[in-house]
């Protein structure tokens, strides 16, 4: 049994909140560079150029890439041989509090969904715990902006809807979102499980680097096909037309009930942010 002090979790979460918000991952940067080179539509090309300038400025100045520094989604994979000295949930929230204050990040959380008073420190975080073998803790912080979160959808399809039904639902969700989620977007898709599990899988799909296809060839092929079909819709960067509507489609799947085919689509903008550290 290895003991980890709660303060170590706090400090790691703090650091990851700031880094995720100010420094875009190489996978997204590469996709943006390629998209800018491949766009034939002039306005789309210019917008992609501005998006690239933007993340470079953010990186140089240590400034948030986007003003919506999100709700902090924190994923913890806790080794079953770890004992945490202290309150894990409070340790994570303290890390968010510290990171959002010292990193000059926006506090975007209201204490109650109907009586909407800002909590003032961006807590509570959305925390997802997983217990895994080992004596380490892997922490991922993924700040989630709500311009794109609001465009996400879930459907309980019939098994007879099959592959075509899933593809149609994903494409209709992207089409209905149009310019709202700041295209080019990253599309997280969760297929299977239960109502809530599908949504969780869709969110988890957004954590996988966009240059890593699904491990199963069938789903890797589906990711590729969906990306091509979404980019044929013509929505383009910011919804002004072009071939770059999405940078990637990431799919996660899970066994499900004989009567069901849950599918969830969690949309992210081009500022798809997540940073991970193992302690």
């Amino acid at each position, binding site marked *: 049994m290895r003991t980890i002090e709660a303060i170590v979790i706090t400090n790691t979460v703090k650091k990851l909140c700031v880094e995720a918000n100010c420094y875009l991952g190489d996978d997204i940067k590469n996709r943006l560079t390629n998209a800018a080179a491949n766009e034939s539509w002039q306005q789309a090309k210019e917008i992609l150029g501005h998006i690239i300038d933007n993340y470079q400025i953010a990186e140089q100045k240590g400034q948030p*890439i986007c*003003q919506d520094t999100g709700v902090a989604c924190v994923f913890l994979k806790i080794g079953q041989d770890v004992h945490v000295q202290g309150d894990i949930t409070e340790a994570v929230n303290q890390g968010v509090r510290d990171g959002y204050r010292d990193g000059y990040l926006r506090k975007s959380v209201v204490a109650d969904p109907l009586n909407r008073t800002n909590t003032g420190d961006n807590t509570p975080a959305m925390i997802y715990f997983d217990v895994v073998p080992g004596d380490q803790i892997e922490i991922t912080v993924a700040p989630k902006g709500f311009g794109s979160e609001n465009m996400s959808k879930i459907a309980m399809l019939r098994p007879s809807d099959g592959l075509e039904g899933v593809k149609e639902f994903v494409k209709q969700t992207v089409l209905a979102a149009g310019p*709202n989620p700041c295209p080019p977007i990253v599309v997280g898709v969760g297929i299977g499980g239960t109502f809530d599990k599908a949504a969780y899988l869709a969110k988890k799909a957004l954590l996988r680097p966009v240059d890593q296809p699904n491990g199963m060839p069938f789903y890797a092929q589906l990711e590729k096909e969906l990306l091509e079909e979404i980019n044929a819709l013509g929505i383009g960067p*910011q*919804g002004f037309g072009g*071939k770059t509507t999405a940078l990637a489609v990431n799919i996660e799947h899970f066994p499900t009930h004989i009567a069901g085919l849950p599918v969830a689509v969690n949309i992210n903008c081009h500022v798809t942010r997540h940073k991970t550290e193992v302690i």
Partner: protein
Amino acid sequence: MAIKINTPLTRDAARKLKAGDSCLISGVVYAARDAAHKRFCECIAANEPLPFDIEDSIIYFVGPTPAKPGEAIGSAGPTTSYRMDAYSPTLIKLGQTGMIGKGKRGPEVIEAMKKHGAVYFGAIGGCGALLSKCIKKAEVIAYEDLGAEAVRRLEVEDFPVVVVMDSHGNNFYETGPANYLAQNK
């Protein structure tokens, strides 16, 4: 070539702008989003004055990140505009001529824009660091308790936007992709 706009934006000037025009805005715009818009409409209903002169004004739908020491403002890109659809027609009726945001608007806003002469600009979503360079001064003028959602008076210089919806009912979110698809069959 981008069209230069100096605030205040008169109704006549707003009527001349066409969907798809690229513009650079200089002067004063007011930052306000969901919670501030709700309060504006409560003020109007109670016959109380608004925190700024709404006549010929431009409102930027933005909630910036906190400014670092020595900076005018933090990152400050547009937020999704449809959440202001419940409030914008009331403000347009009172003389607001410009809105800056991103994303679609509802029919009630489009009708008010046509009737009274107002324009909806799009700024690039997710480019808050880049756009903050065009904001030279920022001052909270109302509702400080709302934090990121407080009303701010912003002095902007050559702030880049595209006319998404004009006062004649044209919508660049429809014509832009349609033109692209027509030329890339």
